[in-house]
């Protein structure tokens, strides 16, 4: 990349960053509205949770009890969040943000791992179909991907667990994430990744999208020129036909994967954001569920940002727009 190319790229990226920040603000507002409108008045609970114990003792609570306009409430809550204060968990009594980040990291592993698995399955099928069209091999594969995308991921989880515990006898029935002393512990940790990667329900759409994009690129004039000059078609079609579509579809499917993670974490007892969210929903632990919702949105927007970055770097025209 030439030095002269860096400045326009930086400009485009700063624009994307600003949009991301605006969207995250919107996210916080949506979450706020939901909590504020809730009959149980969770919002006061939230605000209270943001106070330190000293302030509580000092009777700030009385001041808090005075009805204030919702804008002030929102802003003070937002200010709290921006300084890292997400309130305190009702159930656990611990500050929310560190806890959510801790489990969020586990979910991140799960998410990225499963995306890799999804791509490992989807990309070869998509590329094959793009080149060969509908033939004896691609049709059953496409059918297979449809079936996989419709099966409930929790049931797939059961099948996998049963297979590994009973048939292969590798783990005892009561397993846990940090089950020490298990000979195949690393393999066990791959299971939820595998299950989420296969069962997240997006495979057929990913295949369809990638095949469509690669097919479109293969029909472009410049690929015909590449063929005519004896150059490698894959080399020329890679950027527009594979790299960019993959980042695009991955970014757009992150919300789905995170949703699937909620279920998979339940099935495998994986200590991630999803399981914590489920617990929090059951306990009406507002600060926690709110923290998770916001963190999830942050992850989604990070994915989107990443996609924009790749696009700008790869496409020489993007920086001029």
């Amino acid at each position, binding site marked *: 990349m030439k030095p002269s190319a860096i400045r326009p790229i930086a400009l485009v990226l700063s624009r994307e960053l600003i949009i991301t920040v605006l969207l995250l603000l919107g996210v916080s507002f949506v979450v706020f509205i*939901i909590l504020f409108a809730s009959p149980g008045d969770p919002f006061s609970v939230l605000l209270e949770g943001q106070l330190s114990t000293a302030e509580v003792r000092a009777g700030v609570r009385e001041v808090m009890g005075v009805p204030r306009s919702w804008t002030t409430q929102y802003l003070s809550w937002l200010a709290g969040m921006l300084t890292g204060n997400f309130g305190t968990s009702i159930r656990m009594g611990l500050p929310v943000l560190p806890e959510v980040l801790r489990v969020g990291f586990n979910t991140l592993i799960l998410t990225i791992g499963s995306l890799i698995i999804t791509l490992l399955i989807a990309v070869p099928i998509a590329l094959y179909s793009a080149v060969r069209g509908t033939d004896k091999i691609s049709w059953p594969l496409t059918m297979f991907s449809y079936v996989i995308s*419709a099966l409930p991921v929790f049931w797939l989880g059961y099948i996998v667990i049963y297979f590994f515990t*009973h048939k292969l006898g590798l783990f005892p029935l009561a397993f846990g994430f940090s089950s020490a002393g298990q000979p195949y512990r690393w393999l066990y940790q791959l299971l939820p990744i595998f299950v989420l990667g296969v069962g997240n329900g997006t495979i057929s759409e990913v295949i369809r999208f990638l095949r469509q994009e690669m097919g479109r690129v293969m029909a472009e004039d410049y690929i015909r020129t590449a063929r005519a000059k004896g150059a490698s078609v894959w080399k020329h079609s890679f950027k527009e036909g594979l790299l960019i579509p993959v980042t695009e579809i991955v970014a757009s499917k992150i919300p789905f994967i995170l949703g699937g993670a909620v279920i998979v974490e339940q099935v495998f007892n994986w200590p991630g954001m999803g399981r914590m969210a489920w617990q*929090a929903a*059951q306990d009406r632990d507002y600060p926690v569920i709110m923290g998770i919702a916001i963190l*999830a949105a942050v992850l989604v927007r990070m994915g989107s940002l990443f996609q924009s970055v790749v696009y700008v770097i790869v496409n020489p025209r993007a920086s001029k727009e």
Partner: protein
Amino acid sequence: MKHYSQIPGEISEFSDQPFWKKADAVDLAYVGYGLLIVTLVVVSYLLGSFSLLPRDPQEIDLGLMMARPGTAGHLLGTDFMGRDMLSRLIVGIQAYFLPGLLAIFIALFLGAVLGVVAGYRGGTFDTGITYFTNLVDSFPRLVLILLVVAAFKPDIYYIMLVVGFTNLPVVTSLIKGKIQFLKQKNFIEADVALGVPTSTIILKHILWHNCRSLLIIQATLGMAEAILMETSLSYLGFGVQEPTPSWGNMVQSGANYFMQGKFWPSTAPALAILFTILGFHLLGDGLNNILEGKRNT
């Protein structure tokens, strides 16, 4: 080996084959299967509403637990409490059918409204609506639903409201895209120049003539989504509660038995989910290929 054959006789400009001959056999198969599933669902829903069931879904028969399909009187066997599987599956449809329709309606209606405004008016409206749809897209559906469940109550209709909302960005962008396409072809300009009233342009020309296949397809995909959400939620324990059957909670309660090697109580509802969602997906994709995809010879 590929075979190409031409029928003797004159070929005129209008001798296009009817769509059922032109379309890929595969797509027709998809649509056929999808319609079959839709019919089964609707029929089952009606049966369930009027309680026209083979047996009482709550009737416990401890002497006949986890019977195989085909056992006397139980076409699909029984679950771990001896309750008739087929009846429970049929009743399970009640859990998602009407709520699913609500979700579809919200997604299509609001999505169309926003799509039309964004496409037709453009400008700042477009920017604002794009911001809004990006915002909605930022949330994982399930997490948002859990948030709503925590804040309000785990009512399936509230939940389907959320599902409908989260589906609307797709509809909005598709409709907006269609309008931009029509604008590019100057259809809309021509309409306006001819003095056609705006409501007619939007309702009849844009939505009905040009977008209806798109909307139908989104409806099928929306229903698939609704089923997925409802079953996931009842699996997690937030939807319909035992002993009322929902496919999701049926899989969940059969989990322990699954680990003991008794697969049927969990597998029967799981297969129901599989085949039903598959049906809606295939219907949507098949229709998409037939109606929207193949425009060229």
